[in-house]
């Protein structure tokens, strides 16, 4: 429970990460919502709330062959609170999709990972967002991993609960106990739980309940994304259902440097993925100077394995 202002601010500040989960789920497999919308005949109502921003990066157009080459999408949950325009990227997930094989990899990048931020020296990777927005974070992550990010999906705390609720909640198969009543409010035993927005946020932000802290939290965020994608795909989405979702997306999303064709293709690309064919793993980091986490020795090999086609063959 959040009983004090301090705890609430901490809650607000540190746990926006899960918002990104919903956004990616939307980007990856939005037709579930669309199917619901089509089934119920409910037209999305403009609320004025922006749940997410989708940015096509400067390097997106250099993708060699659309539909053939791997595509890299960065999903970011920022720590922005209402009214704030500058924020750090506190939940960072890099998704590499191989359209040819229908496989994908999600690299969960802890927010404290040390990285070279172009023009700003070495810092925690989450500082790139506040220094230069989505593009700089994309460049920073791209340089770290050795890829070019084509799209960045960002969200903040305010969008998270609303988006999960828009989806009608998500059925999550909790495979390990996730309890942290003091900070996140997470209270999930093993088994399938239907989570609303608030519960999903608690599930995805809990780090105090695990010995590995933020690393386990990052992994859980990725897991939640895949659980959401799995649920969306059970609705057997197609192009028309995707359009229905885009109608909703358009009312709650801001598209930067891109049009609806790009948004449609991004959504369909996600929907083409079977979650069984998506690897989810936290990049290998250890301790570091000034609480910055240093990459472990095997990180470079992992990145090289990932960068060539978005799929891990050796890890």
């Amino acid at each position: 429970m959040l009983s004090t202002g301090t705890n609430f601010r901490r809650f607000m500040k540190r746990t926006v990460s899960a918002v990104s989960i919903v956004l990616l789920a939307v980007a990856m497999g939005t037709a579930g919502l669309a199917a619901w919308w089509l089934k119920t005949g409910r037209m999305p109502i403009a609320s004025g709330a922006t749940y997410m921003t989708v940015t096509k990066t400067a390097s997106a157009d250099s993708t060699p062959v659309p539909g053939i080459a791997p595509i890299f999408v960065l999903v970011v949950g920022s720590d922005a609170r209402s009214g704030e325009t500058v924020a750090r990227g506190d939940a960072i997930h890099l998704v590499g999709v191989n359209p040819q094989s229908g496989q994908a990899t999600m690299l969960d990048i802890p927010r404290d990972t040390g990285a070279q931020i172009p023009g700003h020296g070495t810092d925690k990777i989450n500082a790139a967002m506040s220094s230069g927005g989505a593009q700089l974070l994309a460049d920073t992550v791209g340089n770290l991993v050795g890829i070019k990010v084509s799209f960045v999906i960002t969200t903040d705390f305010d969008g998270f609960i609303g988006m999960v609720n828009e989806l009608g909640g998500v059925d999550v198969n909790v495979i390990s106990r996730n309890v942290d009543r003091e900070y996140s409010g997470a209270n999930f035993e093993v088994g399938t739980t239907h989570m609303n927005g608030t519960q999903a946020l608690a599930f995805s932000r809990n780090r105090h309940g695990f010995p590995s802290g933020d690393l386990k939290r990052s992994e859980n965020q990725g897991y939640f994304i895949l659980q959401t994608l799995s649920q969306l795909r059970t609705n057997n989405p197609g192009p028309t259902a995707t359009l229905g979702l885009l109608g909703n997306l358009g009312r709650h999303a801001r598209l930067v440097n891109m049009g609806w064709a790009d948004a449609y293709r991004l959504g369909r690309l996600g929907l083409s993925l079977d979650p069984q064919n998506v690897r989810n793993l936290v990049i290998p980091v250890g301790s570091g100077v000034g609480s910055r986490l240093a990459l472990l020795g095997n990180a470079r090999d992992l990145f090289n394995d990932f960068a060539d086609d978005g799929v891990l063959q050796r890890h």
Partner: protein
Amino acid sequence: MLIAACGSDGEKAATDNQDQTPQVEKVQFAAGDVKVVRTGNTGEANLSDVDALVSATAKYVRQASVIPMHGEPLKISDLLTSAARPNAVGEASDALTDVGDSPATDSVEVISAPLPITILTDNTGIAALATVSIDVTISTKTKTGAVKIHRVGELAFVHEGSNWLIDGWRLTVNRDGKGIASAPRTSSSTKAP
């Protein structure tokens, strides 16, 4: 919002198949229910867009199925977006097009159910994307026998300039009859550029 609109695309007979009997295709396409998905507060179904989508669908059927059945080269690349072209290969091509069978020796009949259309409008109300659901049966005869092809699914269109181009699809095709070059078969493709 539902509106009814009609469009048609009359097909001309293919001309230069010397070995074939005269072929006259009977093609009638018409819009079914039209839905509009708005990303802003405005946006209605423009009849010119509806007609253009019906015509684009008819053109696709003609170029992907009817013309190849006359033994002429397949020409659908100009109907696809640049993003979709690399995907129109292999299984996708088999689901999208009808090639490889003996040329038709009789007229090619095309029967299409009304085409349900969904249009997405941008925040200024301009149509940006659309999907057309198809249910098309194509029948003809070849020197080896009858051919019947049933294609159902969805085509996704992107509005580029004044054209509606195919950007994606989810199609299932059933082919039957002694005129089919290989054994009667089913093919399907879901492709998302």
